[in-house]
């Protein structure tokens, strides 16, 4: 972008911001089941969700090629299906175990740098995404503003994937990817810990 256009853009943004109202909209308020902010916080404050989603991005970056985007794209789409199951009151068994296993298994595949066939990687991601989506979806019908809540946690999920892809790409080059594999091993150990101490979830 040229310097003139950048100046124009900055000027308009400044003008737009200077004209902003002093009051905020009610649906932006936070809280345990509020709008965007509480939806955004949900995947981030849960260490099990956070690690699994980071692992999806790291694994995609580790495998390379189309997998860099197919895995992070598949995860939220299938997560939405799990979310609808959760909202509908469907009794999905072993939800927390499924989430803990997702951390463990995704950590393992990174640790062993498993170059899975596309269909196998997508299937694995899809199964785990159902559990993560279910856990989010159970809370959605109670949210003050379901639209903002859903947008918040889907955006947070995507951002964690992007950070995961960044970490994966960053760690792929030094020491021939050993750092990435070590991180995967650490994630797997954490997952194993979650499986053995379910009270933490």
């Amino acid at each position, binding site marked *: *972008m*040229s310097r*003139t*256009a950048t100046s*124009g*853009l900055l*000027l*308009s943004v400044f*003008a*737009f911001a*200077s*004209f*902003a*109202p002093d009051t*905020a*909209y009610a649906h*932006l308020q936070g809280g345990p*089941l509020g709008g*965007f902010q509480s939806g955004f916080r949900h995947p981030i404050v849960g260490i099990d969700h956070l690690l699994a989603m980071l692992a999806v991005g790291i694994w995609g970056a580790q495998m390379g090629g189309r997998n*860099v*985007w197919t895995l*992070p*794209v*598949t*995860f*939220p*789409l299938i*997560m*939405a299906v799990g*979310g*609808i199951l959760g*909202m*509908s009151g469907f*009794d*999905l*068994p*072993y*939800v*927390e*175990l499924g989430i803990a296993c997702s951390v463990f298994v995704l950590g393992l595949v990174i640790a062993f740098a498993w170059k899975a066939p596309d269909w196998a990687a997508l299937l694995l991601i899809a199964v785990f995404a159902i559990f993560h989506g279910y856990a989010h*979806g159970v*809370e*959605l*019908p*109670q949210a003050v503003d*379901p*639209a*903002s809540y*859903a*947008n*918040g946690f*889907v*955006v947070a*999920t*995507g951002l964690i*994937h*992007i950070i995961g*892809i960044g970490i994966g790409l960053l760690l792929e080059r030094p020491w021939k990817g050993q750092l990435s594999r070590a991180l995967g091993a650490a994630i797997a150990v954490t997952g194993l810990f979650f499986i053995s101490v*379910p009270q933490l*979830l």
Partner: protein
Amino acid sequence: MNASQHTRDAIILAAAIIVTGSVIIMRLWVPEDVASYVRHGLLLPVLKYSLLLPLIACGCILSSERPAVLFPSLVVLAATLWLGLRWAEPTVLSDQQLAVLLVRYPVLATTTGVAAGCALLLPPRARRWLVPLVCAICGFGLSLSIALESPGDDYSGWFSSAGGLGGIIVVIASIALAGTVQQFGSSAWLSVGGRILGSWLIAASLMLAGSAVVPQRPLGSLTIPATLFNGADLPREP
């Protein structure tokens, strides 16, 4: 990035002049009570995430298009926004049942989200013909949402017009942002980011549609499934 540097710069400069001019006019000549509606209308597309994400998606899609597609699509977006605002007043707002239906079932947010998300997921060549259609859907959906959010008094026209202008500004800012990101990275990585954004939009829209169909449960009524972990029985609330 197919849209040329000059084209993008021209769009951004035109938007900057319009916004800055509007702000000066509002400051100098418009009474404070009307200006308040304009301020809230302008910020509505920014503060309402179900509107914001599809508009950002529109901007990202348009940023990768040639001027031959970019300009007509921007015109379609503006035209459908205007048409929707004109149509909303006599139809949606006068038909309470339709208005309630649109608010109760988030048809607008779901349709715009899925349309913009699917367009982002498609390869650029495949989506070229869909871009004007997606802009039309987003423009119309945005204008109806603005009308439904309108305060509904004598100044609602100011609110609606400002909401439409806010929507266009978001799209143009997204085109500029995507263009700026493009200069620091490759188009392949922008495409990855776009596809991830597309998946967000579709997932959020599906969740939103699901939450509307599923009956709302009051706070505190959530019960933990007995088989949450390892099938172990958990104490139930009395």
